[in-house]
């Protein structure tokens, strides 16, 4: 008999077959998990998707141009800071979402390393690391770097952490290190405009300045009377609350910038200043800035302090966030900034009213009078737009149009001042408008995540009762069930 036909041979052949099957299944397991790591989905089941990154951050990360390395020098335990473990957990959880979101980016992966500066001093020295910080590095040799200190990660009240601002800080840092150049915003000066460096609550824009820098914008001032030209690196030119009229050569410089250089501009009017000299320019772009003061007799359109409540929004990249989250704006003194009906037929111009008043509002033409009453003969009847965007588009050979200039006119200016920027969705519309003007994707304002706290408020007796229930009730029920089964079986 051939050795291959013996039981012994058949047994070993079968064993080899089993071993090969095992190897095959292990390979299948590895391959399947490898594939899964590249085609993964992550679902946030929480009601408000509170652990997910915002659409704004995701939008940045999916278009990340180059890899970013994040080094965390936080340690889980620190005797000096009892909150350290919570901070570490917040940072670690959030960065995990960044890594996952950036996995889909073509070139810009995010890598996170946790380094204890005391245990790895050589590496810490090489990278010039300090303890308790989050460092963002980008560039070929990590030459672009930005540190986010722990103090920037939380909003505090009475020395207690009340909100986690990690997403704002980390996204800003990633934008900072991954963008070779920054978009530059020029604030016009020389006509009593609001000052980005002033901290005054009524005329200061320091909060707006800080928030824009956090979003990786570079800011500068521009006095057209001196320069007589718009710098080449201008991404947007902004005029906020000019109190005197722009000279004709300044108007011509701005018109040239907008028309011949496909410029981007945002104008925030100071009501009761008329003419500002920009009305003609806006008219070219299909926007009519009426010299009226918006008043509202309706209870829904007015706040207790007299601010206008504006919730009548038109879908547009600049208003998307506000519509989705049903946010409202709070403007102070405001004039109209509405589409010019006479320019509606221009096929190369897209004019969109972004924010409109309610039906109970009117535009008071004789606003210098003491008493304001709606006069149908002379006043502007509501609803009408107080924020309007215009975009000039040009058809090309590829059967789609390209924007060759964008402008947004705001009927008011004081809503961006320090005192009102944080009210309602004022900040959100400013940032999303600027993002639209500079061609960044429709972006969302990043919300802070509240820090939750759990405490058991029970008296000593009730706590003792709870303890006994936990220790004896449930195990006791299991024991009773066991005895019942035992007794039934014996019978």
């Amino acid at each position, binding site marked *: 008999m051939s050795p291959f036909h013996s039981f012994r041979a058949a047994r070993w052949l079968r064993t080899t077959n089993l071993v090969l099957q095992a190897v095959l299944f292990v390979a299948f397991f590895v391959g399947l998990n490898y594939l899964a790591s590249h085609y993964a989905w992550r679902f946030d089941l929480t009601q408000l998707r509170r652990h997910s990154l915002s659409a704004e951050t995701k939008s940045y990360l999916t278009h990340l141009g180059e890899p970013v390395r994040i080094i965390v020098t936080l340690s889980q335990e620190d005797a000096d800071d009892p909150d350290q473990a919570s901070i570490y957990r917040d940072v670690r959880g959030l960065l995990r979402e960044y890594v996952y979101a950036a996995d889909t980016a073509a070139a810009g992966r995010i890598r996170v390393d946790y380094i204890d500066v005391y245990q790895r001093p050589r590496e810490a020295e090489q990278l010039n690391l300090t303890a308790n910080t989050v460092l963002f590095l980008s560039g070929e040799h990590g030459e672009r770097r930005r540190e986010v200190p722990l103090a920037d990660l939380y909003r505090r009240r009475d020395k207690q952490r009340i909100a986690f601002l990690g997403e704002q800080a980390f996204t800003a840092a990633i934008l900072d290190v991954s963008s070779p150049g920054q978009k530059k915003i020029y604030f016009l000066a020389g006509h009593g405009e609001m000052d980005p460096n002033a901290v005054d609550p009524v005329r200061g824009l320091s909060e707006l300045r800080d928030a824009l820098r956090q979003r990786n914008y570079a800011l500068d001032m521009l006095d057209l009377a001196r320069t007589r030209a718009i710098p080449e690196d201008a991404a947007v030119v902004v005029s906020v609350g000019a109190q005197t009229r722009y000279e004709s050569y300044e108007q011509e410089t701005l018109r040239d910038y907008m028309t011949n250089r496909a410029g981007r501009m945002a104008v925030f009017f100071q009501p009761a200043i008329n003419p500002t000299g920009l009305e003609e320019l806006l008219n070219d772009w299909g926007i009519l800035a009426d010299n009226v003061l918006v008043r509202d007799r309706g209870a829904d359109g007015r706040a207790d302090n007299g601010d206008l409540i504006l919730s009548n929004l038109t879908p547009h990249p600049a208003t998307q966030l506000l519509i989705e989250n049903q946010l409202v704006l709070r403007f102070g003194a405001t004039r109209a900034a509405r589409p010019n009906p006479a320019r509606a037929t221009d096929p190369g111009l897209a004019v969109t009213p972004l924010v409109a008043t309610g039906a109970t509002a009117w535009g008071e033409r004789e606003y210098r009078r003491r008493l304001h009453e709606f006069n149908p003969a002379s006043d502007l009847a509501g609803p009408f737009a107080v924020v309007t965007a215009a975009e000039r588009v040009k058809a090309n050979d590829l059967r789609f149009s390209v924007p060759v200039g964008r402008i947004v006119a705001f009927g008011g200016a004081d809503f961006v001042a320090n005192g009102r920027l944080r009210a309602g969705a004022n900040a959100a519309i400013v940032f999303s408008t600027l993002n639209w003007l500079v061609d960044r994707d429709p972006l969302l304002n990043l919300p802070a995540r509240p820090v939750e706290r759990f405490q058991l408020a029970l008296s000593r007796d009730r706590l003792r009762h*709870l303890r006994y229930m936990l220790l004896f009730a449930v*195990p006791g029920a299991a024991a009773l069930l066991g005895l019942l089964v035992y007794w039934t079986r014996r019978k």
Partner: protein
Amino acid sequence: MRHFLTILSHEIRMLLVSPGTYIASVLFLSVMGFVFANLLDEYSHAPQEISPAVVFFQLFWLPVLFMVPLLTMKSISEERRHGTLETLLTAPVTTTEVVLGKYGAAYFLYMLLWGSTAAFFYILQRSAGDAQLLDTGPLVGGYIFIAVSGLFFIAIGIFTSSLSRSQAVAGIAGFALLFVLIFGMDFVADIDALGREAFEPIKTVTHGARVFQHLDDFCRGIVDTRQVLFYLSGSVLALILSILGLEAKLLHS
């Protein structure tokens, strides 16, 4: 697979009438009740930033390391030691049906034990009357984690039970494998040498297999398909290896 349900129902019936099951249940619930009562003490002293459910589930390893080997160690090794497995396989049932039947019964008991701990949260809710204290996100996420990871942990127990005729050896091997899976990956992922680029794939694998990180995600209400697949494919692999190993042993017995 016609006889799978027959074997499964028989195994479950045997478990439910066995005094050992109730002794194990009482011990399990006593330990977990003690743990839960102690952690609530902290919540009565000072406000905490983590939900009690998260802290409770972070101790999942305690019952897993001890209960899973106890639940599974005798399932196949005892049959082999008594020689009843060969007898069982003379009936028209396959090795796969036997392994899956025992696996299903052990998983049923595992989930029954963990399901009983929901009573702790019910008692807490009734006593405290504070809905905020009982955050549903971590609670639901934690139980999903227990259910999904339990598939893998029990499969590992069944696998180690198929390796040896001795219950003790199977139990210790199960404990060791589970320990490596739960704590070993965290340890390996923290090794500094893996920071080098050459070891990047190993680092990626160990990072992806960290059980505590999975738990953290589930407790935050995040379900990641990679993690779910890791447990599902892991349990299938462990069961297939158990079946193949068992067939190889039967072949050489």
